[in-house]
C-alpha cells in the first residue's frame, strides 16, 4: 500500500467518524437562518438603528399583510392589494410574453444565419446597452398610455437577455451534430427541428430566467415613475406618505411574485429538457 493510499484511508476513516455525530436536519438549519434574519429585522426596528424605528416590526408587517390579503384598501381610500397586483401582473405577463415570442425566433435567426447576423443584429446591438429603466420617459410619451409604456419597458428589459442567450446557444452548436443529421438525409428544416431548436432550449431557459428578473425590476421602476394602480406605484406612494407598513408589504409581495415566477420558469425548463435530468439532480 502506498503512502497516498494509507493517507486516503485515514482521511476516510476520520470523515466517517465525523459523519457519525448526528447533525441537525437540513430544514432546521434552513429554518434557523430565516429565524435569525427575522430577529435581526426586529432588533434593528426596536433599537431604532438610523431610521429603522420608522419601519414596522416583522409582527406588525405580518398583521398588515394579512389585512391587505383579506381585502383592505392600501392607503386612505385606495385600491386593494388585488387591484394593484392585477395591474402589475398583467403588465409583466404581457411584456414577458411579447419578449419571449419575439426574442427566441430572432435569436435563433441571428445565431444561425449569417445574413440575419450581418444585417439585423447590429440594430439590436445599438439598443442593447440602454438600461431598461431609461426607456420609461420616452416610452410613456411615445405610447401615449401608461399601460403600453410600462409594457414596453418590461418587454425591452426581458427581450435582450432572452435574445442574447438564444443567439449564444445557437453559436455553441457543434458542427458534428449538424453533419450527423445531414448525413442521415436531413433537410435544412430538419436541422432546425432536430438540432438547432432542441440544442438551444437550455439557453432559452437561462435567458428567460434572467429576463423574468429584469421584467420585475422594470415594472416596479416604471410604475414608480408613471403612477396609476400597481404594486410599484403603491409602494412608492406609501413611502411619500410615510406609510411604512404598506411599503414593506409591497416589497414582500413583489418578492414573492418574483420568486414564484422564476420557479415557474425553472420548472417549465426542467420539463422541456428531460435529457438534462441527471445533471440537475
Amino acid at each position, binding site marked *: 500500500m502506498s503512502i497516498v493510499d494509507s493517507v486516503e484511508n485515514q482521511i476516510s476513516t476520520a470523515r466517517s467518524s465525523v459523519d457519525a455525530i448526528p447533525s441537525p436536519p437540513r430544514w432546521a438549519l434552513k429554518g434557523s437562518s430565516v429565524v435569525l434574519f427575522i430577529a435581526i429585522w426586529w432588533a434593528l426596528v426596536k433599537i431604532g438603528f438610523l431610521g429603522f424605528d420608522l419601519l414596522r416590526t416583522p409582527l406588525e408587517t405580518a398583521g398588515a399583510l394579512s389585512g391587505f390579503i383579506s381585502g383592505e384598501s392600501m392607503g386612505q381610500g385606495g385600491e386593494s392589494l388585488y387591484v394593484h397586483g392585477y395591474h402589475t401582473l398583467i403588465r409583466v405577463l404581457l411584456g414577458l410574453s411579447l419578449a419571449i415570442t419575439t426574442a427566441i425566433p430572432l435569436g435563433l435567426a441571428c445565431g444561425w444565419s449569417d445574413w440575419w447576423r450581418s444585417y439585423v443584429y447590429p440594430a439590436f446591438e445599438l439598443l442593447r446597452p440602454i438600461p431598461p429603466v431609461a426607456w420609461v420617459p420616452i416610452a410613456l410619451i411615445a405610447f401615449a398610455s401608461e399601460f403600453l409604456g410600462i409594457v414596453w419597458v418590461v418587454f425591452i428589459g426581458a427581450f435582450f437577455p432572452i435574445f442574447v442567450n438564444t443567439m449564444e446557444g445557437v453559436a455553441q452548436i457543434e458542427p*458534428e*451534430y449538424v*453533419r*450527423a*443529421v*445531414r*448525413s*442521415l*438525409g*436531413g*433537410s435544412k428544416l*430538419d436541422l432546425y427541428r*432536430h*438540432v438547432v431548436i*432542441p*440544442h438551444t*432550449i437550455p439557453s432559452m431557459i437561462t435567458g428567460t430566467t434572467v429576463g423574468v428578473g429584469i421584467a420585475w425590476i422594470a415594472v416596479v421602476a416604471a410604475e414608480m415613475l408613471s403612477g396609476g394602480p400597481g404594486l410599484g406605484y403603491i409602494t412608492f406612494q406609501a413611502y411619500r406618505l410615510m406609510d411604512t407598513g404598506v411599503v414593506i408589504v409591497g416589497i414582500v409581495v413583489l418578492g414573492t411574485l418574483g420568486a414564484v415566477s422564476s420557479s415557474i420558469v425553472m420548472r417549465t425548463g426542467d420539463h422541456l*429538457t*428531460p*435529457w438534462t*435530468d*441527471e445533471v440537475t439532480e
Partner: protein
Amino acid sequence: MQGLTKIYDPDGEHVTAIEDIDLTIEAGEFVSLVGPSGCGKSTLLECIAGFIEPSHGQMYIDGGRIDGPGADRGVVFQENRLLPWKTIRENIDLGPKMRDGVEDGRAEELLSKMGIEGTGSQYPTELSGGMQQRAEIARLLANDPEIMLMDEPFSALDALTKEIMQELLLDIWEEDNRTVVFITHDVEEAIFLADRVLIMTAGPGEIKETIDVDLERPRDLDVTTTPHFNELRKEALGHIVEEAREAMEGGQ
C-alpha cells in the same frame, strides 16, 4: 460504388491536405485508411461524406457525382454524435423519420442486433461510451446506407470493448454487403477488418501503398495471432515507419 476519386484540397492558406488521390472502391468492399495524424485521412472521408468540397477533382458513386451529404453515405464519428436531446430510440428512428417514415419495431430490432436491447428510452448520456457507439451504428443501419464511413470510431473505447466492436462490425458487414471506408491509426485494426489497407502519407496527403489483405473470411480475433497476419502487419508497419522517417528528414 465505382468511379474515380481525385482530390486536391488547398484551403485558404494553400495547405494541401490531400493531393491527387485516385481511388476506386468496389461495392461491398471493406477499405481501411491508415496513416499518421494530419495525413488527411479525415479530410478524404469528409469529402466522400460530402461535408467539404474538394478544390479539384471529382468523386462519383455509381457514376453519380457527390454533391453534399446524403443518406446513402452514413457516417460514424470518432466522438459519439448521438443527439443528446433525443432518446436512443428517437435517435435511431431519426433518419427514417426525416425521409419516408419509421418502421415500427425497427429500432428495437437494431438495438438487440447491437446487443443493447432495452436502452431505447434512455438518453445517450445515460449509456457508457461503448454502448453509445453501438447505438450510433444502429442509427446508421436504420438508415440503410450503401456506404458506411467510419472515422476512427473505436479509438475512444477501451481495448476490450474495441475488440468486441470490431467483431460486431464485421458481422454486420458480412450480413448486408455494404461498402465500408474505415479510418484508423491502428494498423492491426485496419488489417483485421479490411479487404484492402491504404497507407497514406502526410503533407500533402497521398496514398502511398496498398496492401491487399487476403485473410479468409469470416474472421474472428484469432486471426490476429496467425503468421500471415503478422507478415501483413510487418509490411504495413514497414511502410509507415519509412514514411515517418522521410517526413522527419524532410522536416529538417
